[in-house]
C-alpha cells in the first residue's frame, strides 16, 4: 500500500465538514454548495449494515486533484474541495464531501454536481457493501479503461448540459 502522508483528498477518519468550507476565506464568494454522500441503509432493495471503501490512492489523489482543477476553471470557482473517506463506514457516516464556492449560486451548484459526478465516475475507489444477512458484495462500478471495447460508453451519453461535462454511462451509479 502507499504512503498516506500526502493524502489531501482521502482520509480514513471521519470527515470534518466545517473545516472543508473555508468560510474564513474567499470574501468575494456569495455562494457555497456542498454535497455529502452518506451511507444508506439500503441499496437496490437489500438492507445494508456497513460499507468498506478502498482506493488505489496514488491515482485517486491525482484524479481528484485534476477534477478540482477542472471545476475551478470551468465554473470560475474561488475554491473547491473534495474529500473521500476510506475504510469501514457505518450507516449515516459521511463517505464523500464536495464543496464549491463561487461569486454566485448557479456556478456553485453546477460545480458541486460536477465534482460529485466526476469523482464517482473516475476516481479509483471501490465500495464493498455488507448486508444484514452476513453476505457482502462490491458495488457495480464505472469502467475507467480508456480503450475498453465498450469504451464508446464514454461518449454515447448525452445529458442536458453537453457543454458542461459528459457523464459516462455507468451501470454502478445508483446513488
Amino acid at each position, binding site marked *: 500500500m502507499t504512503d498516506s502522508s500526502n493524502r489531501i483528498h482521502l482520509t480514513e477518519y471521519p470527515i470534518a465538514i466545517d473545516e472543508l468550507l473555508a468560510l474564513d476565506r474567499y470574501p468575494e464568494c456569495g455562494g457555497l454548495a456542498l454535497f455529502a454522500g452518506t451511507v444508506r441503509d439500503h441499496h437496490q432493495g437489500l438492507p445494508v449494515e456497513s460499507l468498506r471503501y478502498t482506493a488505489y490512492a496514488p491515482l485517486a489523489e491525482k484524479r481528484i486533484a485534476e477534477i478540482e482543477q477542472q471545476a475551478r476553471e470551468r465554473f470560475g470557482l474561488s475554491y473547491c474541495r473534495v474529500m473521500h473517506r476510506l475504510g469501514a463506514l457505518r450507516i449515516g457516516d459521511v463517505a464523500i464531501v464536495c464543496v464549491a464556492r463561487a461569486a454566485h449560486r448557479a456556478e456553485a451548484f453546477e460545480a458541486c454536481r460536477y465534482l460529485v459526478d466526476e469523482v464517482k465516475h473516475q476516481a479509483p475507489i*471501490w465500495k464493498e457493501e455488507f448486508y444484514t444477512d452476513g453476505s457482502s458484495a462490491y458495488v457495480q462500478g464505472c469502467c*475507467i479503461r480508456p480503450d475498453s471495447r465498450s469504451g464508446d460508453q464514454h461518449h454515447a451519453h448525452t445529458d442536458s448540459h453537453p457543454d458542461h461535462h459528459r457523464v459516462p454511462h455507468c451501470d454502478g451509479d445508483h446513488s
Partner: protein
Amino acid sequence: MNLSFELYGELIPLAGGERISLVTEMAPATVAEALSVLADQCPALQPRLDQCAAVRDTDILLRSDPLPENGHLVLLPPVAGG
C-alpha cells in the same frame, strides 16, 4: 520474465489475494500480452479483465502500450466511489 499484478476491488476476492506474481518464458511485449498471460494463469480473473484499467504508477495505459520494464501492472476494476 517476472510479471506482477497489483489488484483492487473485486479482483482481490476473485484472485484470493492483493498481488499475483508469475514467471513466463516469453516476455510479453505489451499490456495486452501480459494480461493474456494473467488470464491463462488465473481463470477466475479472466471474465473481469476486459473492464479493468491497467496502470503504471498514476498513468493509465492502453492495451497496446509496451509492458513496463519492471513487469508490474496495477489493475483497476470499475470504480464506485462516493
